[in-house]
């Protein structure tokens, strides 16, 4: 069940359908760009953008190893998509559509349908159980008498049978597409956004580096666990280990030697090369690889 996309995105999608790339619809939660729809997630992955899954899975909620939708995009990923006209924001107005009452009605109708189906099936079940019980107990006897008794019992069962609502097996829809129904969740995410905006020169340096490496075909994810800016993979992260920890800085930014040493040592411990990355004035990016010298 998908939230209705705004018409602008639909138009873009129709235009792009003949092209190789589709436009993805960003659900903006405050300033955080989220993707909810499966097709959008697939599109984004095929463009070598990884993002980070945030949602818990209905069947395995209490763990953080495998997460589900929505997909959160890094600021650099969102910017690269927008610059290539690959993303548009879904209008918040449409997401809070007043289809809530309609959805509720649809849900209740579905439940009723399900109840009726299940009660028919339950009755069938009971009948066949009864049949088995009666024919097995009176196996040697056969004749009109036992048949009549059986028919009586079956009729009685049908008349007295009732399927209680509490026995209804409920199917949970896991194809929810957005936060339009959950106002409380949305408010929670808006109020407590932990990511701090970095100061501008660094942020711009990050973006230049991201775009350059992404343009070369690398997959990049955030490298918070390694004290760097990005982890650089030669292919899809599901298939490869990262080769590089990218640390983005401007050419004239002063860095402490201790920081250089600690990040280089960390890199050698995890078998990744640390890259110092700085955008150059001519638009290219300078990369310096740090490696353990092996000189004890």
């Amino acid at each position, binding site marked *: 069940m998908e939230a209705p996309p705004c018409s602008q995105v639909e138009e873009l999608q129709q235009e792009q359908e003949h092209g190789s790339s589709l436009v993805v619809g960003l659900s903006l939660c405050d300033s955080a760009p989220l993707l909810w729809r499966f097709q959008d997630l697939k599109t984004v992955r095929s463009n070598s953008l990884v993002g980070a899954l945030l949602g818990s899975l209905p069947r395995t909620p209490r763990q953080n190893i495998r997460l589900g939708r929505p997909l959160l995009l890094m600021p650099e990923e969102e910017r690269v998509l927008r610059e290539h006209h690959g993303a548009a924001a879904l209008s918040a107005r449409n997401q809070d559509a007043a289809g809530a009452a309609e959805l509720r009605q649809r849900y209740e109708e579905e439940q009723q349908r399900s109840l009726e189906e299940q009660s028919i099936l339950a009755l069938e079940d009971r009948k066949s159980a009864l049949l088995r019980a009666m024919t097995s107990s009176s196996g040697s006897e056969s004749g009109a008498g036992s048949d009549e008794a059986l028919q009586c019992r079956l009729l009685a069962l049908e008349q007295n049978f009732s399927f209680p609502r509490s026995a209804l097996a409920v199917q949970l829809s896991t194809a929810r597409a957005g936060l339009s129904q959950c106002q409380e969740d949305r408010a929670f995410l808006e109020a407590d956004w932990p990511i701090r905006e970095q100061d501008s020169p660094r942020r711009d340096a990050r973006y230049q580096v991201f775009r350059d490496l992404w343009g070369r075909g690398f997959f990049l994810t955030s490298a918070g666990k390694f004290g760097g800016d990005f982890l650089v993979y030669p292919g899809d992260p599901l298939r490869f280990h990262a080769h590089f920890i990218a640390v983005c800085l401007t050419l004239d930014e002063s860095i402490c030697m201790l920081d250089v040493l600690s990040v280089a040592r960390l890199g050698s411990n995890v078998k990744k090369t640390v890259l110092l990355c700085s955008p150059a004035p001519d638009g290219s990016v300078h990369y*310096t690889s740090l490696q353990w010298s092996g000189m004890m």
Partner: protein
Amino acid sequence: MSGAKASEKAPSANWILQHPTYQQMKELNVGESEQIHAAFLVYMDLTEVRRWKEVSCVKSLDLQVVLLEAREKDGAPVHTVLPLPVHQSLCHQSIRQVLDRGFPMLLCAVASDSTLVYQRMTDGLVTPDPPVGPFEDTGRRQHRKRRQHR
């Protein structure tokens, strides 16, 4: 009497300052005394401890520091070594300027206790060495662990 003896002992502590190479570095007129001291310690490490060849000091006008050039062995390529006290900061631009000299570069961090750490710096993206096998399938290991617990 102890005062006289103490003053006799004092000059020998200046052996570094009197060392010809140290004086050569000073004459280059770049770098603060701390950086020159760091450069000297790296010089001694390369020549006396590691026995590198053709170790010489050059001045870098861009960075205003003393650099060292040396070969690991005869016939090996010349390396540029940038010795820096560990509490000093530097910028990526300076590193690029040293790399622009065209030789493989080693950054050497000198701590206050004279500990030396060498880091190799290379232009471009150098793929790391792959992890070494043999590799054990973690899935099977976990399965084996669970069976033991039963």
